[in-house]
């Protein structure tokens, strides 16, 4: 076994998870300045939303272009309830999640009756309607002025989340929870149902999978993720405006997802981290990042549609299959019964 293989094997072990979490916990201590911690916290928040997008778009195969809109709904519900109605942060936070699920359900039962292109176009329009309502409905949303003085999450006197580092750990906690839930879904029979729909509606239906119920469930999960991320975002940035609902955020998230690996478990995190830090290190990119992102999207879908994580998993799965073939022929030579492929396939399935 060469070093590359050993490293790739290590990536798939539980120890890797611990290494990642420890690294994230230690990050504020090694970060050069507070700004870096802030950027990382923000990246975690976006990653949560990207995990949501991955459920409907990556697992279920439905390109949802309203995702940024649901992120904005979460941010605005939190901001309006705390600033205009004096709710406590955490109550408003729960309300934001519920609102994301509720609006997601409504949008889902209408839009998911449409297939492929129709669904993408319809959700693009839904996203734009959300943007227009936020921009124009001044009595509710303060219009173009936006909402300022949004409170930070309530630390109940124990922690002060107006400080960057405590918020970083809060965002990390939510991010880990999000990945954990995404992992549960991806690896379960539910995730398999979603993936069957991604292959083809007809195939999934012929396997007895209720298309509408599963698609709506995936959609509601994704909008809930988005609105929870939006609410956290509002608590971190503490000022929001209609730009939060701009479709460009949806396109950003698509880029993160595609770079990391659409439909994979770690893809959303990897993509968000890579692009966030790439943009940070190339400051001039901030405004014109789309000059790079645009062609990047095109190149990715043509040449590397599986992204970083997907390509890695594909390479690894193929290598393991080859290894098993080799192993089998040896065993056959020794006249032993072939090993069950179940254990190794479980591994591959778990991370696919």
């Amino acid at each position, binding site marked *: 076994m060469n070093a590359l293989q050993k490293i790739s094997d290590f990536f798939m072990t539980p120890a890797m998870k611990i290494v990642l979490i420890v690294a994230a916990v230690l990050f504020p201590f090694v970060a050069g300045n507070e700004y870096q911690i802030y950027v990382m916290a923000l990246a975690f928040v976006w990653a949560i939303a990207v995990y949501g997008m991955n459920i409907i778009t990556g697992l279920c195969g439905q390109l949802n272009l309203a995702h940024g809109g649901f992120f904005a709904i979460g941010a605005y519900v939190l901001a309006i309830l705390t600033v205009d109605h004096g709710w406590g942060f955490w109550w408003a936070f729960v309300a934001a999640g519920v609102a994301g699920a509720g609006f997601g359900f409504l949008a889902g039962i209408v*839009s998911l009756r449409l297939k492929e292109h129709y669904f993408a176009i319809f959700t693009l329009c839904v996203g734009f309607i959300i943007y227009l309502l936020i921009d124009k409905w001044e009595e509710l949303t303060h219009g173009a002025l936006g909402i300022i003085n949004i409170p930070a999450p309530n630390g109940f006197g124990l922690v002060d989340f107006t400080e960057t580092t405590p918020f970083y750990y809060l965002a990390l906690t939510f991010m880990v929870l999000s990945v954990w839930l995404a992992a549960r879904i991806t690896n379960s029979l539910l995730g398999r149902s979603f993936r069957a729909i991604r292959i083809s509606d007809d195939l999934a239906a012929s396997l007895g999978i209720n298309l509408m119920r599963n698609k709506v469930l995936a959609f509601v999960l994704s909008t809930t993720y988005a609105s929870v991320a939006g609410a956290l975002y509002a608590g971190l940035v503490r000022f929001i405006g209609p730009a939060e609902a701009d479709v460009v955020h949806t396109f950003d998230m698509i880029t993160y997802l595609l770079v990391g690996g659409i439909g994979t478990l770690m893809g959303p995190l990897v993509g968000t981290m890579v692009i966030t830090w790439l943009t940070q290190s190339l400051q001039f990119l901030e405004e014109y990042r789309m000059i790079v992102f645009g062609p990047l*999207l095109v190149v990715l879908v043509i040449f590397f549609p599986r992204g970083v994580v997907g390509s890695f998993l594909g390479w690894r799965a193929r290598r393991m299959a080859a290894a098993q073939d080799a192993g089998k022929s040896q065993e056959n030579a020794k006249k032993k019964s072939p090993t069950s492929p179940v254990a190794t396939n479980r591994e591959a399935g778990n991370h696919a």
Partner: protein
Amino acid sequence: MQDHANSVAASQYRGGIALDLFLQQVLNGLTLGSIYGLVALGLTLVYGILHVPNFAHGALYMVGAYVSYITMVDFGANYWIAMIASAISVAVLAVLCERLVFNPLREAPPIHDKIAAIGIMLFLEAMVQMKFGAEFRRMPTPYTDILDVAGMTIPAQRVLIIIGAFALMAVLHLFLKKTMTGSTIVAMAQNREGAFLVGIDANRVAMMTFAISGVLAAVGATLFAPINLVYPAMGHLLIMKAFVIIILGGMGSIPGAIVGGLIIGFAEAFGGFYISTDYKDIIAFALLVLILSVKPTGLFTKGVR
């Protein structure tokens, strides 16, 4: 007595104003509708033949406006020369997109060509913004007269838009019906496999279709921009409305795009005037949501999709 006469005159006057305003909205609706129709036509042709929902079409429209603007302002060219220059450049750009991006993705899963189209759109917008900035520009036009028709004031550019758009549609119609290439495009839109069987060169048709959609976008932009503004995000709303239009009119349907364009144009003109200017841009999308909630296959689609 005097009071009475006055009030009658006033109400007649008000009636006249109301009618005048009404006709004014008809004119607005026709202007908007013909531009929407042009843009939707390009979109629907590309969709009908390649089944690509080209999200970059709005960006092509925007590039068309900038090319015309530069040709006129920086090179001092005539309006019509600018329009031709713009049509050619955008057609070439559209063909490039087809060759470099959509053609390699022909066999890819349906999500990929949409993402690639979004990528092209983002790139074009960012390029234009970097080069020319995000500010709004006003495109000059030689047709600044205000015509006075039966007591109505009509800006000449609006007349030009309506006549120009419908003339182009007529030319396109003749092209599709009377020429060999045109009928090939129609044949392929109606039956892709059948077209392949009778030996149609799919590549040539695809390039041709993209070129036409580029010309339609560029001409639409050059016609419309003088009464509107030129800025990098100018294609955003338009492309979304064009999508609404081709869903309403049936994706791939040419008459559907024109009729759908007029429906949305009139709905916006009247909705914006009689209901609310703030929300006039939402009308198209509200219509879409409403219609698709009732009839998920669109208004004018027949049989199965």
